[in-house]
Every structure is written in C-alpha cells, then in structure tokens.
C-alpha cells in the first residue's frame, strides 16, 4: 500500500512538475502587433514595435485607471540587424516580447530604397512567425513615425492598416508570402503596397489637426522592386489596381468617366484576366491580355436611358475602351519608365511556352521593355440600378 502511494506520488509529481520551463504566463508577455523597419543614420537598422496595452483594449471604452489610456505604445531600438535591435528593445520592456500575433510589417521608404534583402531572414526562420502577414512601405517618412499614429475606429492601428488594405482591394495578409515567392522567381518582379500619412479631411493645415480630424495612415499605391529588393518606384492607387487585375488578384474596381458626352461611374466585379503569349515564327514574343468583368452602374449623371438595349451596349463599349486605353498606357509606362516585369509576363511565358522561356530567361529583363502588348476588355453590364436615366432628367431631354 505504502509502496503504491509513493509510486502514485512520484508519477503525479512528474506530471505536475515537468515540462513547465517553456511556458510563459500571458501576464509576462508583451503582445507585439506590428513591426517597423527603418534605416538609421549610420547604416544600422532601427526596429520599432507596436505593443498592446491589454487593460486598455477592454470592450466598451477605456476603464478608469492611472496612466495613459491608449491601447498601444511604440518601442524602438537600433542595431546591426533585426534581432540585434529586437534584443535591445527587450531592455525597455517589462515583459517578454511575443510576436506570434504580429499582423503588419512597415518598412520605411529609405530602407526600401537601400534594399531589404538582408533584413527579412528572421521572419522565415523563427517558428513563431507564420508566413501570413501584411508588408507595406511607408512613403515619405519613417515606419516609426507611421506606427505612432492612432486610428479612430480601431483600438490598434495595425488592425486598421490591415483592414484598410483588405477593403481597398489589396492582397491583404498574403503580401509577405507573395513578396517571398516573387523575389525568388525569374519571370516576375516583386511589388509591395504603399502606405502614407494623410489626414481624414483633405488639405488641413497643422492648426486644424485635432481629435476630430486626426492624421491617419492611408493606403496609396504600390512600390516596385528590382531583384536586389531595392525600391525602384511608386505607382498610384489606380495603377496598383490595374496591376493586381492583370495579376488576377483583384476583386473589384471602380472606373469613372467624365467628358461632355457622359459623366458616369461603374463598379466592375468578377474580374478575370487571361494572358496569352504569342510566339511568331521569327521568335518575337507578344502578349495578348484579355480582361473580363461584370459591371454594375453606380452613377449616370446623364439622360441616357439604361433600359434601352442599345444604350447599354453603348455604355459597355465606352467603358471597355476606357479600360483598354488606360491599362495599355499603364503597362507601357511601367515598361518604359521602370522596365520591371511586376505583372509576371515572364512567368506566364514560362508556364505556357516553357521551351521559349528557356531561351529568353536570362535576357528577360532587357527584353521586357520592348515586348508588344495587346489589351482587350469585355464588360458585361449586369445591373443598372433603380433608375433608367438619371432621376434629374426631364422627359424632353431623355434619349440620345
């Protein structure tokens, strides 16, 4: 009996006492939701972290208590590389950093221009990080600066950035993986979304900035990288959407048109893009891009009656022409100004004509700016909304 008791005691104490040394209490963890990376003056890297203050994230506003009522704070330190700086940050924190919940990585424009090839290794090495995450370039300022801004709707600015990015039709939390894949492939050049400091209300001066119209971060465009992962240029927001459409990653896009004839806007959904490489007998390569979409009329400030079939066709044709023109202009701009194949035409060639690709693979960077591209767009108008012509048109005007 005694023997059994002792045995049970030993066994249970093994269960109770062992395997606890890897555990960290939640109260001893500093939850790190966003990382900022900047170039410091002396070539070092400055790492910033946005850290949650758990007691202030409680539902239903901020409970009373001493100290600040913000739900986050920012820490930063400089170091030779990412982990050197992170370990210095630990000196400022009472709790062990926990990066498993990290949502967003901001990269300052300076660092992006210098190149990020020697910065990111840790994110793929430490098992605590998933490859899922958003990665953005901060235009015009440092990541540290951007991370200190509050956002009125969300407790944590990192969540605001992620949601903004998703709502505006970007790649969201797949950006980091996408960046890794594209920087390793031969036929596509990497690109990253861009964020910048703006104001909730346009054109405010410093005095007018207050709690009601604060400074916030806004998604604005996309940055193009070369194979050394250096930032080469930044495109505008609408160009970013065209780019994602061509890559097949965009969900919807608004196209508007304003001239004497028509002032209208259409939402395009179910976007598809089919790229076909055409290799002629003398081995010149051209690409034919077939864009397709379903259209929903959002605005039609004219007397054009959309209940008429021929008007619908007219509407469709007009917008098809606009998209074709703009997309073609955009691709030619990228070809001539940057010469970087961010769309992945090379990869399309690789997939569809592997033997041709084998020959041109090494010279693709030189070939890409000269490639002729043909854009074709088909829009099917699916919904015209609740009125035929604009409700503000008189009967006599209606027709055209």
């Amino acid at each position: 009996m005694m023997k059994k008791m002792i045995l049970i005691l030993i066994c249970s104490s093994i269960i109770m006492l062992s395997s606890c040394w890897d555990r960290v209490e939640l109260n001893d963890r500093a939850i790190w939701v966003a990382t900022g990376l900047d170039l410091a003056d002396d070539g070092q890297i400055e790492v910033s972290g946005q850290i949650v203050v758990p007691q202030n994230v409680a539902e239903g506003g901020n409970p009373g208590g001493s100290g600040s009522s913000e739900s986050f704070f920012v820490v930063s330190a400089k170091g030779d590389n990412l982990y050197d700086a992170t370990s210095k940050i630990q000196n400022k924190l009472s709790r062990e950093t926990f990066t498993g919940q990290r949502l967003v990585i901001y990269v300052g424009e300076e660092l992006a221009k210098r190149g990020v090839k020697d910065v990111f290794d840790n994110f793929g090495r430490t098992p605590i990080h998933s490859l899922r995450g958003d990665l953005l370039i901060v235009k015009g300022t440092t990541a540290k600066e951007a991370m200190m801004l509050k956002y009125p709707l969300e407790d944590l600015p990192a969540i605001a950035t992620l949601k903004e990015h998703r709502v505006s039709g970007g790649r969201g939390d797949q950006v980091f993986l996408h960046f890794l894949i594209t920087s390793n492939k031969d036929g596509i050049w990497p690109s990253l979304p861009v964020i910048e400091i703006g104001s909730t209300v346009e054109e405010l001066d410093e005095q007018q900035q207050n709690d009601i119209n604060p400074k916030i971060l806004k998604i604005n465009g996309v940055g193009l990288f070369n194979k050394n992962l250096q930032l080469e240029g930044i495109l505008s927001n609408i160009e970013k959407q065209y780019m994602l459409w061509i890559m097949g990653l965009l969900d919807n896009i608004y196209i508007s048109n304003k001239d004497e004839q028509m002032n209208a806007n259409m939402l395009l959904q179910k976007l598809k893009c089919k790229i076909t490489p055409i290799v002629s007998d003398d081995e010149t390569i051209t690409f034919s891009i077939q864009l397709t979409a379903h259209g929903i009329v959002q605005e039609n400030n004219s007397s054009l009656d959309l209940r008429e079939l021929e008007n619908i066709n007219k509407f469709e044709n007009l917008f098809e022409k606009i998209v074709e023109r703009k997309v073609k202009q955009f691709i030619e701009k990228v070809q001539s100004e940057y010469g970087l194949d961010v769309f992945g035409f090379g990869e399309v060639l690789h997939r569809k004509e592997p033997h041709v690709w084998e020959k041109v693979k090494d010279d693709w960077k030189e070939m890409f700016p000269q490639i002729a591209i043909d854009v074709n767009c088909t829009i099917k108008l699916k919904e015209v909304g609740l009125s035929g012509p604009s409700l503000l048109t008189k009967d006599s005007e209606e027709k055209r």
Partner: protein
Amino acid sequence: MKLSGKQIFWLMFSFQFGDMMLVINSPTIQMSKQDAWISHLIATVISLFIVWLAVKIGEADAKSTFLQLSKKLFGNWFGTVIVIVFLLVWISVIPIILIEISNFINTILLPKTNPIIFYISLLLLLIYLTYNGAFQTLGRLSEVFGPIILFSMVLMLLLLIKEYDFKNILPIVADNSFYSIIKGSFIPLSLLGESIILIMLVHFSEDSKKVLKNAIGGVLLSSFLSGAVLLSILLTFGVEISMEMNFSAFNVISYISVLNFIQNLELLAVLVTFLSIFIKLSLYFLLLCHTTAQMVNVKNWKLLSFFYAVPFLLTNFTIPNVSYSLKYFDEFWVKYVLPIYMIAIPIVYYIVIMIRKRFFPFN
C-alpha cells in the same frame, strides 16, 4: 494474441506517415521541382511492389521468424550475416529518428527544453511498451493513433484548399528532365520502402492471408496522404521557397487561417507527427530486441530493451547536430539502404524461396 488485419493496416499507415511528412518534402522538391508530385507517384507504385515482395517472403513460412527463415534458406552462417545487416540498419536509424524528433520539437514547440528529456521519456516509454504486451499493444496503439492522425491531417488539408494556386505546378514536366524526376522519386521511396519490415510482421500476424491486402491499403493511404501534403506545399508556396524550408509541412499548416480565428494549427500537426513517429520508433525497437534475442539465444527477449536503451540514450551526446541526420539520409539511407536493404536483399530472398519451394516445400 497477435496482430489482426485491421491492426496491420493502421500500423503500416502510422509507421510511415509521420516521418514522411517530416523528412521528404523539401528534398523531393529540391530534386524534381514542381514535378515532385510525379516523383511521389512513381515512388508509390514501386513501394507497392516492395510491399508485395515483403509479404510474399513472410508468407512463405509464416510460422518461423525472420532469423529462422534466413537460416533455412541460406544456412546457419550466411543467414545470420544477412539478419545482422538488417539489425545494423535498425540500430543506425533509431538514433536518427530520435534526434530528428527531438530537434523538431525543440524548434517548433519547446525551445528551452533539453533534448535529453525527450530521449529519456521516449526510451522509458519504449521499455514500458516492451514489457506490456509488445507487438500486440503496438497494434492496438496504432489502431487508436491511426484514425486520429488521418482525421486531423485531412481536416488541416481541407482548410488549406483555399490557399492553393494551381499555377505553381505548371509547367508540368518541362523544366525537369525525366531523369531528375526519377531521381527525386528515390527520396519518398526510401521511406515508403521501409515497409520491408512486413517480412517480419507476417510472423506476428493473426492470419497471414489477410496481411497483403491490409498492408497495401495502409501503405497506399500513408503515401496518398503524404502526397497530398507535398502537393499542398507546392500549391501554396511554390517551388522556390518550399525547397529552402526545413519543415515545409509545418510552415504550410501554420499558414492556415480561417476567418482570422482558426490559426496556429501546426501544434496539431506536431502532435500528429509525434504520435506517428513514436509508432515507427517502437516497431523498430521491438523488432530489434526480438531478433537480437533470438540470435544470441536470450530466453527473455524483453531484457534486451534495457540493453539497447542505454546506448541509444548516449547517442544524444555523440550525434553533434541535426545536419548529421540530414547527411545520413542523403548519403547513406538513399544511396545504400534503399537499393540493398529494401530492394536487392528482398529480391534475392524471393528468388531463393521460389527455387526452394519447387524442390523442398516448407512444411
């Protein structure tokens, strides 16, 4: 009490699956790029042949153990030498499995734990298993673990489907020569071919006629499931980054995110791998003790579990790091163990059995 047909099925499944998920993905993708899944398919077909061969050899004289069979076929001296080759393979692979699993859990789950803890607890478990039912307990254990492994893996793979990008496996058979695809198939084959231990398992089974069907089923299931893991890695990450990862299966499972709510499932995957690798470890350990005991004429074969546990524990100090085990796999396992232990010796056995059967049938 012996192993039933169902137990053989789950035993073969859990015996292979965990180690395959842990070891083969990145090396196969390195070798045959986006066509790794074709390599895997080829390996599956060849491994079925190995299973068939192993069961036929075992069936020829199901009453005698492997050692007795070898002695009958090749005489006392030469038969023992062949069995020693088998023993050496097992003795060399057990420390490798131990270091793989402890390094893996250290990296993914418990970074501060001393690996000696894993060694001690695993080896104690193995001794406990040897003394409590041995093969029969192992059979029951895999009947419990097998469905858990299967169910959780299928669940995780289903959640991953929305991340697939089918462009990642195109173009099919264009970047690679056929030779490199075949070469890539050796890597999964070298683990699937471990089903050669069926030669010995037939002796421990209830009904030797049921073994073939169930063994083929188990191997097919594990091969299919690990193939699905391989394909998911390719479709989610593409070739370039998945071949640079150490544990790509776990990276891909940690990439699962459903509604920002179901995340970090790799912990489940670690559990599954651990269960499966424990089955593998125990099967090798039991066979090792049992066969050695017969060879040196020890009546109580279970005593040998202590004899082996101590040196295996010491390998924790002698194997310097995990790159040793990678080297072992590349340089020794695929190059020598696969052709000799898994293919050449069984074929010789089979031929000798066929000739022997014609002239002096086994009674």
